[in-house]
Every structure is written in C-alpha cells, then in structure tokens.
C-alpha cells in the first residue's frame, strides 16, 4: 500500500507547514505511519470514529460526491491537526491512496459547488 500526494494537496500541506508546523508534522507523520501499517490503512476506508491505538481518527466517505466517488476524509482528533480535514481517494486496483486536499474545517464543508470541492473531484477524476 502506498500513499501519494496530489500536487494541489502538496501545496495545501506546504501552506500548512508555513502557518502551523505542528499540525503539518502531525498530518505527515500520521500518513507515513498509515502507509507503513496495513492495519491502520484498513481503517481509513471504514466510516466512523476509528481507533488507532488510543489515537482517534474520524473517517467519513464523501457521500455527496456525484458520480459516487471513492473519496474520503479523515480528521486526527485531539492533536494539533484536529482542525484539518485530510481528503483522499483510494484506488482499489493499484492499492494507492492519493491525498487530494488538506483543508481547515472552516474552509471546506463538503460543498460540491465550492472551489475546493470542484478541485478535489476534478483531481480525483483525472487520476
């Protein structure tokens, strides 16, 4: 299992490094640990509050996406990164997870018509 980061999400993460280093490091390390442990990865495609040890990740599928897309988001609860939504798509055939956006929860509320919503779906469709 491998994690890729789309160029747009890379830019999101770069902005986060420049504004909130602890949050950026938390997101990066969490993704890296998920990549290295199939048990953790499995929980990223299960809707709900999933426990990774005592760390809680709130995982939701973006059900509003049309046509239905295998696009999800997680939040890392009780950490410096709690306010950020990590949006990702999972490609079943290649077993690759692609991070599509890292957004503050106030900036993205799953609106399909928002600039970010359109960007995420367009990026996923292009992969």
């Amino acid at each position, binding site marked *: 299992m*491998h*994690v*890729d*980061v*789309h*160029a747009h999400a*890379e830019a999101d*993460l770069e902005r986060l*490094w420049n504004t909130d*280093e*602890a949050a*950026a*490091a*938390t997101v*990066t*390390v*969490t*993704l*890296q*640990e998920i*990549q*290295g*442990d*199939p*048990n*953790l990865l499995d929980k990223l495609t299960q809707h709900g509050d999933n426990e*990774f*040890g*005592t*760390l809680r990740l709130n995982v939701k599928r973006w059900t509003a996406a049309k046509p239905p897309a295998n696009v999800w988001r997680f939040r890392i609860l*009780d*950490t410096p990164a709690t306010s950020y939504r990590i949006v990702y798509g999972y*490609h079943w055939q*290649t077993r*690759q997870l*692609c*991070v599509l956006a890292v957004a503050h929860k106030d900036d993205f509320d799953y609106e399909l018509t928002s600039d970010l919503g359109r960007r995420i779906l367009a*990026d996923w469709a*292009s*992969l």
Partner: protein
Amino acid sequence: MSLQAISGGESWLIGLHSSQPSTQPGFVISAQFGAGRPLPMPNSKALDDLVAEAEAMPSRAAALRAARKTLAEPLHGTQAGLACMRMKAGKSQAQLAELAGTSQAHIARIEAGKNDPGTSLIARIARALDVAEVEVFTAVRSIQAEAESA
C-alpha cells in the same frame, strides 16, 4: 550455465552452474525481491519523497521528530512493540531501516510481527534506537505473539 542479475538495463554475472562438483570456495548470496513501489499517480508525488524533502529542512525535521514522539503511544497503543519504540526515538521506518542496514519494507514486516529478525539485525536496530538489545528482542517477540494469536 551462468546466472545473471539484470536491473536498469545492466546485468551482472552472479553465479555459474556446473554439473561437476567443485572443491573451490564459494559465496552464499542472499537477496530480497519485491514488487517495488508503483509509480505515483499522475500529477502526484510519493509521500516518501515529500517526507524526505521535509526531513532535509532542520525545523521541519525537528517538528517531524517531535510529532513522532507525541504520536508514538497514541498511535501504537501501550503495546511494547517496535513501532512504538521507533517513534519514541523520533524515527520513521525508512530512517530506522537506513541506520540498521535493511529496507523499510523489512522494518514494516518486523513491526507487524511477520518477519523474524536475526540477532545481528536486532543488535543493529538497538544501536539505531539507542536502546538495549533485550528491549528490541522483547518488543519483537511481543508483537509476534500478538500476530500469531490474532
């Protein structure tokens, strides 16, 4: 008959086969083969490359080490496993692999209890994490027992 290893368009002679028994001293060669990493998706970058770029910047490297130490127990529970031990040392799987002279995939499998490291690798991991060998041995055995009972 010759046995050749081919990689990146180059090939190396790594052995000869003869029907006659030989009294000449020889080498024991071991190798690890894997499927390798698929190419990143279009317009994307492998997370490992992104992390490597961050690790090259001192302040980001320090933030990553701090995040690993903070997340070690929450992420890997209270289990006395190697993953928790590694993160408490502020290291990624790739960093530990490099220091211990093995691959990231091998470290991942040891952490999952799927590979049994020999004593020399246990010693190298202990040195890399600056802990006693017996701690690594106990951590590895503990996660193996957990994996076997699952």
